[in-house]
């Protein structure tokens, strides 16, 4: 049953050193910036972070990397024009990178939440990202065995939650949120608004509350101010 935290700091309390943290977002869309900032403040270190990217500019995940709190990152696209903190850490050999094609990253996270022990995917077959992995030819097509990515914690941003923890998202800010919420032992969600149970149409709920452990409301004005 979802619990409601008063602040982002309360929501992330209890994240342990060495935890694997799934962080939602693609670019700024769906990035749970206040939860990431709270993770920064709570001091947890030696983290494995799963995100599409490896932090941008001088905010959020980039600052966690700058402070060397992330020992390993699993992502699809670390190198960006403003990924200087990752670039520096990587070149210094101070962060481990597991590079995963974006669709394999998403499916590996989905598999974890769905109880799948592994799956054969065509993506990456015959490339250097499949080196050392088990492969199989099925009906004449090559596939690579990929494993699930479980999280100890997921940090997700959604638009609205009800009191049961049911979630709806907004446009392309949905991205990794629903699959990360399902793949972590504890999913922590920041939302722009909370409504009474029954006020969300059951037909439009994207993440059922069964996947949600902690919800914190972050006023959208503040969220936008941080994102820019």
């Amino acid at each position, binding site marked *: 049953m979802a619990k409601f935290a008063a602040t982002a700091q309360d929501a992330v309390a209890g994240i342990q050193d060495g935890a694997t943290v799934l962080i939602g977002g*693609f*670019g700024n869309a769906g990035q749970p910036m206040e939860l990431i900032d709270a993770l920064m403040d709570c001091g947890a270190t030696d983290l494995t972070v799963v995100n599409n990217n490896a932090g941008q500019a001088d905010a959020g995940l980039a600052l966690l990397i700058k402070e060397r709190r992330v020992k390993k990152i699993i992502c699809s696209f670390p*190198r960006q024009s403003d990924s200087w903190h990752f670039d520096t850490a990587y070149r210094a050999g101070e962060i481990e990178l597991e590079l995963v094609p974006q669709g394999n990253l998403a499916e590996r996270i*989905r598999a974890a939440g769905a109880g799948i022990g592994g799956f054969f995917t065509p*993506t990456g077959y015959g490339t250097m990202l499949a080196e050392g992995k088990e492969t199989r030819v099925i009906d004449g097509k090559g596939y690579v065995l990929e494993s699930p990515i479980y999280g100890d914690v997921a940090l997700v941003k959604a638009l609205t939650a009800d009191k049961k923890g049911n979630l709806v998202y907004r446009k392309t800010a*949905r991205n990794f949120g629903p699959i990360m919420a399902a793949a972590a032992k504890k999913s922590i969600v920041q939302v722009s608004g909370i409504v009474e149970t029954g006020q969300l149409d059951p037909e439009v709920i994207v993440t059922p509350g069964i996947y949600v452990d902690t919800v914190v409301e972050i006023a959208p004005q503040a969220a936008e101010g941080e994102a820019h």
Partner: protein
Amino acid sequence: MSEKLSREDLARLVAKDIQPGSFVNLGIGQPTSVSNYLTAEQDITLHTENGMLGMGPEAHGDEIDQDLINAGKVPVTEVPGASYFHHADSFAMMRGGHLDVCVLGAFQVSASGDLANWHTGAPDAIPAVGGAMDLATGAKDVYVMMSLFAKDGTPKLVQECSYPLTGVGCVTRVYTNDAVFLLTPDGVRVRETFGTTLEELQSKMDIKLLPPTE
């Protein structure tokens, strides 16, 4: 045609070749410009891998919404009939063969359709793959848009790619400023040339080129 195609004309040609009613993903960079030449009559639905079908043109001014971006993280718009879905669904739709066409850029393409477009192989480069390998694998047709020759004059449509591969045997057509190539089970067939001839191209390339079919 008597002249090499401009970048705009190349984008126009790719757009014209996409069948009406298709579901299409346009890669970041030059392929994105194809959308400028798709017509309303073609009724093409654009997919963006960060979770949307029915993507409209780039957003400007008041239209800009930070929750509505494309795979290149550029603010875009939605068209009537658009839909949103999470990342795993978005790539399942691609991997599952539901997209008709994907248009990508490339460093190299091999005669058998291998694609190299994600990594130069430079040992000190920070690798980044994004959705490139998924895009290469999933669509029914993968069209590549690129220059036919590198700056040093070496052809980029080759017998075997020297750059790290993105996908194996996935490319079906290559659109260049000099010619359009169809990668068929018979070999590489020249569909049309622009400001050059099959003979001239053959003299500059190391792969066997087949003439256009009637």
